[in-house]
């Protein structure tokens, strides 16, 4: 049973008149303006600024870089990490999604919470948490050293440590997008296969995975990128295992070394785009719609083999333990004073509420938090809406070269570090510019959320495209045949179908930029500092010895904010969305036969 069937599409476009396409042309004009103004011009400018020294092209960066064994080793390390991570993250990610959504595993609600914790628990603070478990004074380290006295307390370092942390830290995307995919599987097809005598493994191999293929492609691309761009884990637990991203950030901040930063970033970006192109070519060959016309929700599969069943349960709970322990320790340590934190010792003796009081009773903390919520939220919503439209145009015109090229423009932000993109905007629009209708970006309020949005575009587009592949185009045709305008079709049929992915992306994007510091420091409006600025102000290690404690408290508070947002946007939103989607599906089914006559 193959799940790939392509259905010839009818040419509706011919019937539409020129006038009804005016909004479409206007939108195309808007895309053109956006691409030129925000993606091409500033970035070309910044690259010219960096590589053109005294009127001529300066390529000394190549030579400086190639004479640095440290930099070359870092590049090798980044690629090594990316390749290995693609395998480990996808194994763990697929496993945790299957045990929470596909197989019948006891306590899956609890497991799900554990596996979803990485959504709010990420970056530096996650690594901090892992160090509380596996670091020098970590809980597991203490157990291990009592079992194996020869073990050095600093055993958790280098490539294995980075790989371990990132394997679990980077499954967020699986829990969001693969989970949506699994939930969208069609039960009838699975049942039919089982009735025809397929084993559980065959069902997985021939039905489940092929349907999920576009999402898996996206996840491979994204986990590869996370490996290449690894930042927090190499800094925190890498030790001598250095990767390229911390170096890029470092060199970007020093004007004279920006050419090296740009070069390194372009190397990583190029690898990313090559992978993307290869994967997209593969993706285009198939149509991944499930064959069934009447989708029903997947019922959870019981694992027949008792040994396999026990094993799956055991691994699932072990993984959940690995996920949750660091988080619990971070929360506990946020109640410790400086002595406790700097010695990594949990004890009632060090218990304090002072750090929380200091932040929660400080009225100045709340303004920046609201600003950040506003900025990150707006950027996230607009990025997702915009990319839904772009993905739609790209998917409708799959065969047209221009659509393909347009798509690639939106991956440009992957090529340069965020700081350089910000720099490009300032360089290009420091003075009022006709491209911005006479506005300038310096000192404006909207430059920061705009830059957030630009940075969100590539990943957003990639995920939405993945979601489009699993959308049944017949529904759209049906709606059009019944006389709905294309806007109405889009709002009533397509948007609801994409909603779980779209909401997940809003939540994910929001969370990624909530605590941003690097871009904020560069672009924030004096009247509206963001929470990243406020955190640095209150927890600057050069000025404040208590910085580590304050940082932990802020991390916990941000996790709570992220968690609430996640629940509101994704949790509630997609639940309601799912109900809505079902209704649409039923309507679609009723309506379609009429259309096909």
């Amino acid at each position, binding site marked *: 049973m193959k799940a790939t069937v392509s259905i010839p599409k009818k040419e509706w476009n011919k019937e539409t008149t020129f006038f009804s396409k005016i909004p479409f042309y206007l939108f195309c004009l808007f895309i053109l303006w956006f691409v030129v103004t925000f993606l091409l011009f500033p970035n070309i400018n910044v690259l010219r600024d960096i590589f053109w020294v005294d009127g001529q092209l300066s390529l000394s960066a190549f030579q400086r870089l190639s004479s*640095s064994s*440290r930099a070359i080793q870092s590049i090798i390390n980044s690629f090594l990490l990316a390749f290995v991570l693609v395998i480990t993250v996808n194994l763990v990610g697929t496993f945790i999604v299957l045990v929470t959504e596909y197989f019948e595993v006891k306590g899956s609600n609890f497991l799900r919470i554990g596996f979803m914790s990485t959504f709010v628990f990420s970056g530096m603070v996650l690594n901090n948490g892992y160090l509380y478990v596996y670091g020098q004074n970590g809980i597991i380290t203490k157990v291990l050293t009592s079992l194996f006295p020869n073990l050095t307390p600093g055993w958790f370092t280098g490539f294995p440590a980075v790989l371990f942390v990132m394997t679990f830290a980077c499954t967020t995307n699986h829990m969001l997008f693969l989970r949506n995919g699994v939930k969208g599987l069609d039960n009838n097809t699975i049942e039919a296969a089982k009735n025809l005598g397929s084993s559980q493994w065959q069902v997985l191999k021939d039905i489940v995975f092929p349907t999920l293929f576009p999402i898996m492609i996206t996840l491979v691309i994204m986990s590869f990128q996370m490996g290449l761009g690894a930042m927090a884990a190499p800094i925190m637990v890498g030790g001598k295992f250095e990767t390229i991203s911390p170096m890029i950030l470092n060199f970007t901040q020093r004007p004279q070394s920006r050419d090296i930063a740009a070069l390194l970033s372009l190397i990583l970006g190029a690898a990313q785009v090559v992978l993307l192109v290869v994967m997209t070519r593969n993706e285009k060959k198939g149509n991944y719609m499930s064959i069934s016309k009447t989708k029903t929700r997947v019922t959870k599969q019981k694992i027949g083999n008792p040994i396999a069943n026990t094993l799956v349960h055991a691994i699932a709970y072990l993984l959940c333990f690995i996920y949750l322990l660091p988080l619990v320790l971070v929360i506990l340590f946020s109640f410790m004073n*400086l002595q406790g934190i700097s010695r990594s010792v949990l004890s009632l003796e060090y218990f304090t509420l002072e750090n929380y009081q200091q932040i929660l009773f400080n009225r100045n903390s709340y303004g920046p938090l*609201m600003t950040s919520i506003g900025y990150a939220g*707006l950027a996230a919503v607009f990025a997702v809406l915009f990319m839904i439209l772009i993905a739609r145009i790209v998917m409708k015109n799959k065969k047209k070269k221009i659509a393909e090229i347009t798509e690639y423009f939106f991956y440009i932000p992957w090529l340069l570090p965020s700081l350089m993109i910000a720099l490009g905007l300032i360089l290009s629009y420091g003075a009022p510019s006709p491209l911005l209708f006479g506005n300038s970006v*310096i000192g404006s*309020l909207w430059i920061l959320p705009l830059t957030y949005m630009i940075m969100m575009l590539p990943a957003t587009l990639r995920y939405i495209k993945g979601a489009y592949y699993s959308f049944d185009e017949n529904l759209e045709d049906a709606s059009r045949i019944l006389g709905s305008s294309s806007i109405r079709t889009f709002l009533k049929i397509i948007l609801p179908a994409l909603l779980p992915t779209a909401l997940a992306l809003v939540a994910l994007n929001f969370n990624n930029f909530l605590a941003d510091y690097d871009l904020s420091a560069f672009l924030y409006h004096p009247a509206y500092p963001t929470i990243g600025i406020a955190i640095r102000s209150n927890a600057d290690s050069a000025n404040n*010895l208590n910085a580590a404690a304050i940082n932990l408290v802020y991390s916990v508070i941000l996790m709570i904010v992220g968690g609430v947002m996640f629940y509101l946007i994704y949790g509630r939103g997609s639940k309601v969305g799912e109900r809505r989607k079902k209704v649409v599906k039923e309507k679609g089914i009723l309506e379609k036969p009429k259309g096909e006559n």
Partner: protein
Amino acid sequence: MNKKWLLTLMSTTSVLMLAACASEGEADSATAPESDSESILVYSNSLADGRQEWLDEKATEAGFDMQYVEAGGGEIFNRLLAESSAPQADVTFGMDEAMFFQLNNEDLLVQYEPSWTNEIPAEANIGDQYFHPLVEQRIFMMYNPEFIEGDDIPENWQDLSKNEALQDKYRIPENLTSGTNQKSILSILLQYVDESGDLGIAQEGWDEVEAFLANGYATPESEDQLQNFSDGTVPVTFYFSGGLGNAEEEYDFTGVPVNPDQGVVTMREQIGILNKGDDHDYSKAEEFVDWFGSAEMQAAFVDEFGGQPVNEVAFESASDRITEIAETTTPMDIDWNFVQENLNSWMEKVELELMP
């Protein structure tokens, strides 16, 4: 029921919109500092940990209408450079001489002679009235006498890598992003200035830096360097004068600063007025510089936040510990103009070629 998801989406969006609009609405009334000549926009890396609140209170009392952009020194510096086509800030303070020299090279500062210029020691006044020193910091090597004694006490930075007993027992910078970390490298390099050498430094100097980095201990993020220093794990480190008193109290140790023959790197946080064109009215900014740099304000500032005022009239107000450090160390004679020309290349070379 099928409207519910829309409702959720709408309500979340509207909350976000509200948050943003609240921001924008208020901004309209407070926006565009340049159109309002009364308001002073300060860019500074020296506003953390209550400094901004403190300054704001005092400035408001004195009749100034203030706005701030605060971030790390590198970020403030980059932001000022990037905004050079339309400078936003009126005044900037807190960065060191090297950065101010670079700002001035980019023509970002205007000359002004503050009322307190004659209270500044002549050798500290190196900015040709484009910028002026406020607070002095000394960055020095120090050891913990509980764990280091006798022959093991280093007399200069180069001694560290040569002493077997100190292998991995002295701290080296884990990165060169912070000013203090950069100064540990400068402390070695500047002893080997040689015009014919690579980037103005003799090969011997580069070798010494390489040996220094190869034999020391880079503190991982999971550890706390002051804790390591206090408990003897890494009993030699480097630190800055303004922060030592608090660190000693919090971590319960007494560090002994090492004063090599050439002296210790001494940097001075500067203040300057941004160049916003010839027809710009600088009177408010000048008034602020006069006020903030005055002996009275500087004395109050260091009294609250530590540090050594450069202003001779305010000199007395430094804490006992800082005065002690000032007495036991001698400032190194540094050509900051030479340093600012080469600093970035030096740091890049160390990061690319010498770091282990």
